[in-house]
C-alpha cells in the first residue's frame, strides 16, 4: 500500500535513516501530476459554471451550484464505497495489512468533507430555490444521517489502542455504514420527497438534464474525483508516517537528539 509501512522498516534501527524517513514528504511524481491535472480540471469546472452554463428557467442562477453539488455527493459515495471495500479487504484477508486500513480511514475523512460540502451547497441552493436552507426531506435527512454516521466512524478511529485494534473496530463500522448509501440515493423514491429524483444515476440511464449542464457536471465529476485521489494518496501516506511515529516515536526522538548533539560537538573549520 505504501512505502512507509512500519513493518517494512522494522529491521532498520539506524537513527539517521529514521530521521531521513520522517523528513520525507508524502508527495511523489505521480501525486504532483495528479495535482496539476486536478487544478486544470477544476479550472475547467469553474469555466463551465460561470461562462458556459446559463441561468435555468426555474432555478435561475442557482443552477450553477449543481456543478459542485452533484460532483461532491458523487465523490462522497465513492469515498465511502472505497472505505467499505478497503475495510473488508483488511478484515477478510489473512495478511491484515494496515495499508488497507489507512486507505479506508483516508477515504472516509475525504468523504466526510465532501458530504459536508454537499450539505452546505445544497442548503445554499435550497435557500435560493425553495426559500429555506433546510427541509425535513428524506434525501436531506438521510444525507445528514450519512454525515454523522461517518463522523462516528472517524471518532472510532481516534479511540485508544493499537493500530490493529483501530483497524478492526473501524472496519466493522465501515462495512455497516456503507449500507446507508442506497438508502440515501433511493430515499426520494421510497418517501416521495421534495428533493428531485436522481438526475444522472437513474435506473433508466436517461439523464434528465440539459446537455451543456450535463457536460459541466461530468467535468466537475472528473475534477472532484481527481481531487479525491490526490487527497487520499497524500492522507494515506501521512497516516503511514503518523503510525510510524507512534511505533517508533521514542527511537526517532533519540536519534534526532543524537544527531543534534553530534552536530554541536563537531569542530567547525574556523575553530580548527
Amino acid at each position, binding site marked *: 500500500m505504501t512505502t512507509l509501512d512500519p513493518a517494512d522498516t522494522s529491521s532498520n534501527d539506524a537513527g539517521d535513516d529514521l530521521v531521513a524517513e520522517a523528513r520525507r514528504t508524502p508527495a511523489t511524481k505521480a501525486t504532483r501530476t495528479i495535482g496539476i491535472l486536478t487544478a486544470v480540471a477544476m479550472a475547467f469546472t469553474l469555466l463551465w459554471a460561470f461562462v458556459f452554463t446559463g441561468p435555468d428557467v426555474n432555478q435561475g442562477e442557482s443552477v450553477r451550484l449543481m456543478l459542485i453539488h452533484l460532483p461532491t455527493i458523487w465523490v462522497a459515495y465513492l469515498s465511502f464505497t472505497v472505505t467499505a471495500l478497503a475495510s473488508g479487504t483488511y*478484515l477478510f484477508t489473512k495478511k491484515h495489512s494496515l495499508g488497507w486500513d489507512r486507505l479506508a480511514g483516508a477515504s472516509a475523512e475525504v468523504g466526510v468533507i465532501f458530504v459536508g460540502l454537499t450539505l452546505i451547497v445544497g442548503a445554499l441552493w435550497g435557500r435560493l430555490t425553495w426559500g429555506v436552507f433546510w427541509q425535513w426531506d428524506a434525501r436531506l435527512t438521510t444525507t445528514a*444521517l450519512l454525515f*454523522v*454516521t461517518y*463522523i*462516528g466512524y472517524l*471518532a*472510532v478511529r481516534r*479511540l*485508544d*489502542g*493499537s493500530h*490493529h*485494534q483501530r483497524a*478492526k*473496530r473501524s*472496519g*466493522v*463500522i465501515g*462495512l*455497516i455504514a456503507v449500507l446507508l448509501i442506497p*438508502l440515501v440515493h433511493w430515499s426520494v423514491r421510497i418517501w416521495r420527497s421534495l428533493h428531485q429524483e436522481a438526475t444522472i444515476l437513474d435506473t433508466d440511464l436517461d439523464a434528465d438534464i440539459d446537455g451543456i449542464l450535463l457536460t459541466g457536471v461530468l467535468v466537475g465529476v472528473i475534477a472532484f474525483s481527481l481531487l479525491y485521489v490526490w487527497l487520499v494518496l497524500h492522507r494515506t501516506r501521512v497516516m503511514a508516517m503518523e503510525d510510524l511515529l507512534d511505533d517508533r516515536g521514542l527511537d526517532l526522538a533519540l536519534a534526532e537528539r543524537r544527531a543534534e548533539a553530534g552536530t554541536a560537538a563537531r569542530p567547525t573549520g574556523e575553530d580548527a
Partner: protein
Amino acid sequence: MLRTAWLIARKDLRGEVRSRGVTNQVLPFAGVTMIIFGFALDANTDVLELVAPGLVWLATMFSLLLLVQRTFDVESADGALDAMRVAGGDARASFLGMAIGRAVQRFVPESLLLLAAVVLYAETIPLDGAVLLVTTLISATCGLTAVGTLYGGLAAGSKGRETLLPLLTLPAVAPVLIGATRAVESALGTGTATSSDGWQWVGLLTVFAVAFGVGGALAFGPLIDE
C-alpha cells in the same frame, strides 16, 4: 452456541435482578424524560397526544444508551468480557446472549413508557391495535438491543465512550425510531393512521433486527478479540 447464549443472557439478567440498575436508574430516567417532554411542549394535551409515539421511542432510545453504557461498564470493570474470551466461548454466542439479556431488560421500561403515554399524554390503546403494539415492541427492541450491544462492545473500556456510544448508536437506530413511531401511531390510531399501515413498518423493523442481529454476531468476535 444457543446454550452459551442462554447462559450469558441468564447471567446478565441475574446480575440485573441483584443490582436493580433498571429499577433504580433506567426507569426513573425514562419517566423524567417523558415529563420533561410535557414541559417542553407546554403541556398541550392535543400536541402531546399527536407526538406521543415519537416521544415514547425517543425516551426509549435515550434510556437504551443508559442501559448499554451501564451494563458494559459493569462488565469492563469486572473484566467479564476478558473472562469470556479466556474461557474460549463463541463470540457469536456472547453477542446473542448479551443482546437477549438487554432486550428482556428493555421490555419493562418500554411497557412503562407506553403506560406513561396513556396516563400523561391522554393516549388510548384500541383493542385491535394491541397485537400490532406488542409486535412492534418486540421487533423494535430486538433491533435496538442488537445495535446497542454491538456498539456498546466496541466502545467498552475506551476513553470517551460516553460520547462515542450515542454518536455511533443514534444514527444507526434512526430507521428504528422512524419505523417504530409509525407503527405505534398506527396501533394507537394517531391522526389518520390505521392499524393495517403499521404492519409494513413492523416488516422493516424485523428486517433491521435480523440484519443487525446476524451482522452483530459475526462482527462481535473481531471487535472484542484484541
